[in-house]
């Protein structure tokens, strides 16, 4: 014989089916959406390895430099050094370095390969190069794990696009560990982009993220090296570290100082960017997607909760007489409450089971078409608990109203 609860449910199949469906789709979407939020937030929370708060970046272009002249590179380098010394002298500035790019900047990334042998065809490890000078570590707020910083006489300069063949480099720990798993990277030679000549590792820094945040660059997100060299082109970029509490002042005074040095240069509207804005821009798509998924999940759960509430209320109303009879025959208020809560649990469990399959199916579709990762079981479990708890809560109010039904209704209303 069928349990009375099941036989009662089979009396309104349509409503039950609708709730099961609703719970299933909600669960499928919510666990995938929460997974998307999770992966995005994980990405956004990655540290760059630099002291971000006082940092900003200035990108500028000189005009009227004839790059056809043989001494163009020397001229451009002199102009760059003039800029650097002007910025360094400002009272708001703690430190300044020339640099081709910064973590998360997604611009002018210089990606190359490091090898362990001269003229190696296939690089051992892929890396992003930061072309900078002796003050780089203090400007970026990066401390050394071992070794030393560049000295000023090590810093050279090359024309934009020229091969880098520095005598010394500083590498991130990610690279050091990859190339020299025994932890003895310091003092070892590496070969940049299949070069014949070695570059000695003089320092290892604990962590420095690369400029790119796209899928391709994420494959080597922390493989950074510092090259002691200024790059000479008709444009230049400076990383500036403001004195404590002087960021806003420095954001104004640095471009002013640069214009005083040379009024014919161009600093675009977005040529001066605080690092916090660089970060916001790099992760705008991720944060936007996370918010969107959060919003959709919120609406979904809201809709499902009200749906469960409304249908349970309807069933309670429909069964007032039966409830009254049960109460008259001795069922306690608690029995009635439990009855509706357990009925809800049964329906939601069926929905959750179907939802589990749907969630995996949806995840498979996303993997196939949109390069998503596989949904970890913890997310499914989390969403499952949330959906079950929510629908139990939604059923609580109507169930309590049911438990308040007067037993006398059984005789009065016949």
């Amino acid at each position, binding site marked *: 014989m069928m349990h009375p609860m099941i036989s009662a449910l089979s009396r309104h199949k*349509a409503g039950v089916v609708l709730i099961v469906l*609703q719970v299933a789709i909600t669960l499928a979407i919510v666990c995938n959406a929460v997974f998307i939020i999770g992966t995005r937030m994980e990405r956004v929370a990655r540290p760059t390895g630099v002291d971000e708060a006082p940092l900003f970046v200035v990108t500028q272009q000189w005009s009227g430099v004839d790059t056809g002249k043989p001494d163009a590179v020397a001229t451009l380098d002199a102009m760059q050094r003039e800029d650097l010394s002007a910025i360094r002298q400002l009272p708001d500035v703690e430190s300044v370095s020339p640099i081709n790019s910064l973590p998360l900047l997604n611009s002018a990334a210089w990606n190359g390969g490091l090898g362990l042998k001269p003229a190696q*065809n296939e690089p051992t490890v892929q890396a992003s190069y930061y072309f900078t000078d002796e003050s780089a570590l203090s400007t970026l707020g990066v401390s050394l794990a071992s070794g030393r910083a560049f000295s000023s006489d090590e810093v050279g300069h090359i024309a934009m696009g020229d091969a880098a063949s520095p005598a010394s480099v500083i590498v991130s720990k990610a690279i050091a560990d990859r190339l020299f798993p025994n932890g003895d990277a310091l003092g070892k030679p590496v070969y940049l982009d299949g070069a014949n000549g070695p570059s000695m590792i003089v320092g290892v820094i604990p962590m420095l993220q690369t400029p790119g945040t796209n899928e391709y660059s994420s494959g080597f997100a922390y493989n950074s090296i510092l090259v002691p060299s200024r790059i000479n082109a*008709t444009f230049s970029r400076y990383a500036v570290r403001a004195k404590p509490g002087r960021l806003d002042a420095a954001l104004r005074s640095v471009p002013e100082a640069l214009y005083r040095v040379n009024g014919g240069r161009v600093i675009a509207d977005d040529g001066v960017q605080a690092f916090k804005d660089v970060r916001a821009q790099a992760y705008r798509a991720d944060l936007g997607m996370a918010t969107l998924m959060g919003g959709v999940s919120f609406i*979904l759960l809201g809709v499902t909760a009200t749906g469960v509430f409304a*249908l349970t209320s309807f069933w309670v109303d429909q069964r007032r007489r039966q409830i009254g009879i049960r109460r008259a025959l001795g069922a306690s208020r608690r029995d009635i409450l439990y009855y509706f809560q357990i009925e809800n649990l049964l329906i939601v469990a069926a929905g959750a089971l179907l939802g589990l399959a749907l969630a995996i199916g949806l995840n498979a579709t996303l993997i196939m078409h949109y390069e998503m990762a596989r949904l970890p079981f913890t997310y499914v479990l989390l969403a499952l608990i949330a959906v079950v708890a929510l629908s139990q809560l939604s059923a609580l109010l109507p169930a309590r109203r049911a438990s308040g039904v007067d037993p006398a209704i059984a005789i009065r209303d016949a």
Partner: protein
Amino acid sequence: MFAYYLTLAIRSFRRNLGITSLMVVTIAFGVAASMTTYAVFRAVSGDPIPWKSSRLFVPQVDTRGPGEKKVPGEPPTALDYRTASDLLRDRRATAQTAMYKISPAVSSSSEGSHPANVDGHAVGGDFFAMFDVPFQYGSGWGADGDARHAQVAVISAHLNDKLFRGANSVGQDISIDSRSYRIVGVMRPWNPQPRFYDVVNTGGFSTASEDVFLPFATAIDAGVMTTSNTECDKNPEKPGIAGLAGSNCAWISYMAQLDDAAAVDGYRQYLQGYAAQLRASGATAWEPNIRLRDLPQWLDARHVVPPDTGVSLLVAFGLLIVCLVNTAGLLLAKFQRRGGEIGVRRAIGASRQAIYAQFLIESSLVGIAGGVTGVLLTMGGIACVHALLPLEIASLAHFDAPLLLGTIVLAVISSMAAGAYPTFRATLVQPTLQLKST
């Protein structure tokens, strides 16, 4: 009869104000989420040049060989200088252009104004006719301008407004990276999205306006540096554009117009032959590896549509289905509660059809109310998209008449679909049974 059912529906809404508003809001949310994500999807997945995209082709030739590649087996996304020059010289397509991205400093030489950096491309003379670029004044330079390495430029309406206050500047001189060029054409505002002619370097969508176009050969002569991505195995031997031109780095975008299937086959054979010849001459050491994709295939292969928009659309569509199921449940409850009313109407002569009509009208009325609320929510949703998503994508999503109409139609269809089963159940009510039990 219609008016009577309308009155009945409104009366029933009044009676269950709570449940009715719940249905309206549910439909509104579902429809608004779908339409908002659809607005973004529509913006990024559109064909930027629908009348011609199937005749525009992107050739690729593998001049770098197997080895460490971003995508295994795929030739570089751009051409090296030698290949681009050879294809240009052979002119095997109806029209063709090599292109590279530039960001020179520009000022109008007449005023001696403050130079400013602008974005643009160095392109072939065919560029303008091939892509149907609209002109306000003048025109592009012809094949003749390419051949002569003419010192000419085409500028955007935006730059013309800035430098010449919108006046006809054709024939005027403009200074680009400290060299003087004569303006031969001023474009009308032209902002195709995605930037189909150079998706590799614009990432597809771009908020930056393209303000200056120079002849390809002239720009190379003048050493106007590229701001394209340069895919290199090893660094060029010389700095600057001359070094790039002498290297096998891939940095030049290329498009060809091929008007029919025979031309496409011919061009593919030509590319294959070209690659085979490279192999034979010892310039490459691997089997010819070429691609020839038309524009839609190319945009697809470059994954120009951000995957996030597809995921959002899918998820929002799921939300709509949940809202639909939810509304169906609410309508079912609501209609079943009215067994008595239906019984009376049936007993005094209303046909099943009449009951159908009555309840479908009631459902679609919920849909219309949901649609109107949904329009407001969609507007809010698009405002959220503008605040949240990357600007180059968000700025393309906008609310317009088709979206408004779509929102309301979707809402009505959804609510009628949701109401279909509950209505069917309502028509099954047996008049006698209902009358007896009350």
